[in-house]
């Protein structure tokens, strides 16, 4: 009995120490499963554009930081419940999310794209290279029509709670059969297995997967930006935490001026995705 008592006391003390040691650090939540934005290396260490950028921003803020992992579908609830203080997880700034949390200024932007397996009937759609949905012009509207016809009755796979899911749910490309997955990895797996006729995500997420897996994944149709796809990726922060929001905005200003953001972005994306 005595041993059990001592043992549980020891656990309690060490738990308490971990909690108190982390009390005044800024905790940043990331997913660790959305390369090249954020992912994990073979040893389980968090790596990626946002992990490196987070450390840089913390240096500018001048506070201790800790990066914690959180599943994507619980990201915003976890922030609200104070499991961490900021989100850096490739999260686009959208009006829908802004109802629940605040965002810093954007630090990087990406375009979304549909992907299929080589040989798919969806290859070779006649659309412009990219369309912006904030104020869609005639060409963009025409492209959406082309997509609506091509995707009718098709199964399109996306990660859950993403801008990509919102876009498909919005009806801009008609009624498609949307399948949602917990992680982008699972979307990639089912795209490769043929369960999905197409998948929608950040274009870089697909090129990263194609490169690492050697699978013949090809991008089709236009790249998407604006509208349901939001206005760049920013740091998500609780609405009442204006002090931290200002600190991050200032740190992003500095990092941008010193060229840190474009340097880190070029390193991870292969092109300058900073904004």
């Amino acid at each position, binding site marked *: 009995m005595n041993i059990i008592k001592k043992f549980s006391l020891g656990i309690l003390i060490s738990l308490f120490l971990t909690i108190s040691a982390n009390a005044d650090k800024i905790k940043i939540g990331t997913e660790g499963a959305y390369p090249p934005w954020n992912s994990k290396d073979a040893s389980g260490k968090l790596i990626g554009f946002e992990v490196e950028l987070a450390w840089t921003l913390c240096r500018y803020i001048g506070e201790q930081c800790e990066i914690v992992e959180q599943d994507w*579908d*619980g990201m*915003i*609830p976890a922030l*609200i419940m104070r499991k961490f203080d900021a989100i850096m997880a490739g999260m686009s700034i959208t009006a*829908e*999310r802004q109802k*629940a*949390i605040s965002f810093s200024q954007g630090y990087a932007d990406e375009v979304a794209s549909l992907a299929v397996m080589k040989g798919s009937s969806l290859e070779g759609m006649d659309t412009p290279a990219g369309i912006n949905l904030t104020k869609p012009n005639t060409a963009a509207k025409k492209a959406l029509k082309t997509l609506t016809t091509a995707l009718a009755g098709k199964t399109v*796979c996306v990660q*859950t*709670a993403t801008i990509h*899911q*919102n876009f498909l749910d919005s009806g801009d490309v008609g009624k498609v059969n949307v*399948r*949602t*997955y*917990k992680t982008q990895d*699972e979307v990639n*797996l*089912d795209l*490769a*297995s*043929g*369960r999905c006729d197409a998948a929608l995500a950040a274009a870089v997420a697909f090129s990263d997967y194609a490169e690492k897996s050697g699978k013949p994944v090809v991008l089709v149709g236009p790249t998407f930006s604006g509208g349901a796809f939001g206005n760049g990726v920013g740091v998500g922060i609780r609405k009442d935490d204006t002090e931290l929001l200002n600190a991050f905005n200032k740190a992003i200003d500095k990092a941008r001026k010193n060229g840190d953001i474009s340097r880190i972005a070029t390193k991870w994306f292969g092109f300058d995705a900073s904004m």
Partner: protein
Amino acid sequence: MDFELMVNSFPKLLNATAITLKLLSASLFFGLLIGLLFAVLRISKNPIINKFAYGYSYVFRGTPLLVQIFIIYFGLGQIEYLRTTVLWVILKEPYWCAIIAFALNTGAYTSEILRSAFQTIKPGFIEAGKSLGISNKIIFYRIQIPIAIRQSLPAYGNEIILMLKGTSLASTVTLMDLTGVAKYIISTTFKPIEVFIVAGSIYLFMTFLIHNLIKFLEKKYSF
């Protein structure tokens, strides 16, 4: 607490409950057939058949249901050869993958429940049958099976309830069951507590119904 959200999400969750019940009933149906078959194999005197049946229940009771459903859905989907066979028609669909995983899992538990029920039948019942000149086959179908089913009712009731909760894993392979729709609503409202309370209450209510049905059957067939 956002009560309006709770009220608004209720009909959507209730709709999704239909899928949950479909998954549950299909899994229990196939699981019972598998369970009955393997329970009989388990009491076989042939050591090879016996070991085979034991191996099946050992593997499916010894690994998490989530792992089983992932292996069947994502794992089998990676085998290129399989995708060219006729099996892919079934394995392509998340619905059937989920039912296969659930049925195999509940089948393993059901086989153990029925096996122990068979083995606890008092020899007197069988001897009484024999002394009346009833054939072994009839003894098996008219005496052993009915008694075994009655004996296993309480344990099987638990298994139904466990399986009901197990169906929530269907949402991990893209099915929009009760949990899947709850997660979907949370993904747009960012309010997990409210939605999960409603979804949890629906699960609880279903458990209540199953529990009472089993209790009723126990009373009705008591001896």
